[in-house]
């Protein structure tokens, strides 16, 4: 099943399928280790509902839902 990272439920993991983001944000996400096949764990949502916190490659990363919407995940 395919869905964007911002829609992933808290406590669930999924693998990155592709990046639909553009330019600077796309490159930034790559630099931070979000590449094809990487496993991402949805850790929590901030108190005001946005941004989100995920675990990727063994560290914690925070990003906004807007940016997470450009990361297409494959749920196993």
């Amino acid at each position: 099943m395919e869905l964007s990272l911002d829609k992933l439920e808290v406590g669930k993991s999924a693998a990155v399928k592709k990046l639909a983001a553009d330019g600077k944000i796309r490159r930034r996400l790559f630099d931070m280790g979000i590449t094809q096949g990487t496993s991402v764990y949805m850790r929590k949502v901030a108190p005001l509902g946005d941004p989100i916190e995920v675990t990727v490659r063994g560290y914690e990363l925070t990003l906004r839902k807007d940016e997470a919407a450009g990361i297409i995940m494959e749920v196993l």
Partner: protein
Amino acid sequence: MRFVLAGNPNSGKTTLFNALTGSTAHVGNYPGVTVEKREGRHKFGGERITIVDLPGIYSLSPYSPEEVVSRNVILDEKPDAIINIVDATNLERNLYLTTQLSEIDAPLIVALNMTDLLERDGIKLDYEELSKALRAKVVPVSALKKQGLKALIEEAVLETKRNERKPFSPLEGTYLDGLLKKADTMYKESRADNALFHAVKAIEGDSVEVAARGEAAAALEPDKKLIKNDFDGDFEGMVADLRYKYIDGFIKKVTGGRRKTHQMTRSDKVDRVLTHRIWGIPIFLLIMLTVFHLTFGEDLLYLGAMGLIPEAADETFLHAIFGNGAINSPGVILFNLVDGGTGSLTELLAGVMPEGTWYTGLVIDGLGGGVFAVLSFIPQIMVLFLFLSILEDTGYMARVAFIMDRAFRRFGLSGKALVPLITCFGCAVPGVMATRTLENEKERKMTILLAPFFSCGAKLPIWAMFGGLLYAGQYGDLVVFGMYIIGIAVAVASAVILKLTALKGETPPFIMELPSYHSPQFTSTALKLWQRLKHYVFRAATIIAGAVVVIWFLSSFGFDFWNGIVDIGDSMLGIISKVLRWLFVPLGFAMGENGWMFVVAALTGLIAKEMVVATMGVLAGISGDALELEGGELQESAIGLLVASMVGGAPAAWAYMAFNLLSVPCMAAVGAAAGELKNKKAFWFSIGYWMATAYIGAAVIYWVGTYWWIGLIIGALLAGVITYFQLTKKRRARKQAGKKPMLSTR
């Protein structure tokens, strides 16, 4: 020998740099951008080694000022070796930068930091395997415990002398290998340094590389067209992907297959409380309140209010610690001690210097009244800084950005801007300096522009005095509180207006690492504080001292200055103010025969807000501190009568306070803003923006206060303007959306 130190943010780079160079570090700024450059010396045997600390970066791409600067230092300065510090607890992402540094010609030494933390968790890394995979020497170190540093430098010196390292790219042997060989040969033939690095950049189509050597990138185009895969011609993406694939290929062998997953560590347990969905924000507010209480509170833990502390006798040494019937906070105690010290020094000088001469005036009023007043704020600024850097070192500040980002986004700011702005409630100087942590230039400018609207400690006495006078002193607390609210309201309105006009554009992205929680480190915090202190004292000694002397001169002498010191009313400043006051008549407070006095006080307030009340006292002709007076005494005092003589009445008084609140904060903050903005145009824009906001804000308050229906007109106009901007924005967005989809699926 010259080594550069490169690594990710939070990899312990600063700690390693401090451990290697001690206090020899010399802080400067890279030209053109607000990125600090630090150099320090290290002695090793007979070698004199200079270590250059690069800013913390994740990549050598051209997207942030830090990355561009790091890249230029490495390429232009041609260091003898690159020391890459790598956080062993976060190996995969840290090694991504290593695979880029490895493409540079200079010898590369990997300093593997925090291996002790891994060993504590029972993970042993295979250094041999890692070294083989990276084709670089790997030295395990603990920057914090100063372990392995000698071996690290020894290895770096050895590698430099041997100088036989061949640059290596993880693209070798992949589907991009043919392209890489071709590009590499091309650069080698033109005898370029760092051929491999440039070759990879040319393949990526990196904007800086293409701008510098368009022909090389163009020559690769036909070959690039032949490569077909999921990436659809996104070569940057392919290269990043191949780097991580390369790391994935050996990482299991190095770590033995173990890596931190989402099991709960101690850091996670702390985090669960601090970023809790319900308690996260209240806890944050409580922490900030505590920090401010410990810095500015005059009744520590409210023991005095509970009646637990007896009243202390005035004017004793103990008075500094115990105020009137309460214990002062550490910040206030230090402030009192420094203030008392400089005060005694001034008195001592006044005793030995001949009375009535101009140079006595300069020393006593200029130096004593001005420079010492600024210096006495240093302890509180330092205490505030100490707490804030502890919060930063522990990793909590990153969480603050996380929990507050949502609230800030609509103003074109991210959660990261909150901390500098809150700091401004204490003092705008550290607040402005803290904007350095913001990556986005627009966000940094906006935060600096909003800084003065967060009423600082030095402005409080002005509110307190007016609070005691307006409405017969009945609503003193509400007046003070009202000023804070006015400031916040103006800041919010400013942010909305700036976002629509001068600083329009996309909201900066928010993709940020949340580092693990650490306990704060004493030496690193102390060093940081010391460097800030040096900076501030230097500033006080130059810019502020200069401004103070000028003001003193203008307020002590008439235009016939050879005739000696005159009353402030006949001084140059007094005469200028009598002329300038016409400018301020629309603001209500400059009318009548005493109007010019308020103008003088406000003008001196541009130097330092502490001077507003002091100047009014001098003009009213009272001796001693107006703030010591209470209740009816204050009403009856000369200063009370002066304020009562304001022709515009209460609305004019509010307008006057608003002018002081919103205008240029003080020379120290202006100096800090100049330091952070770098750009002259942005700096003068800020000064102009503050003065214009102060003028308009005060005028609106006065006129609406006098004729309430004007408020309706202004409200309607404002609503109209905002609606107009919103509508055009939507139309523009729709137009763009029509042209191309927001997210292209390449």
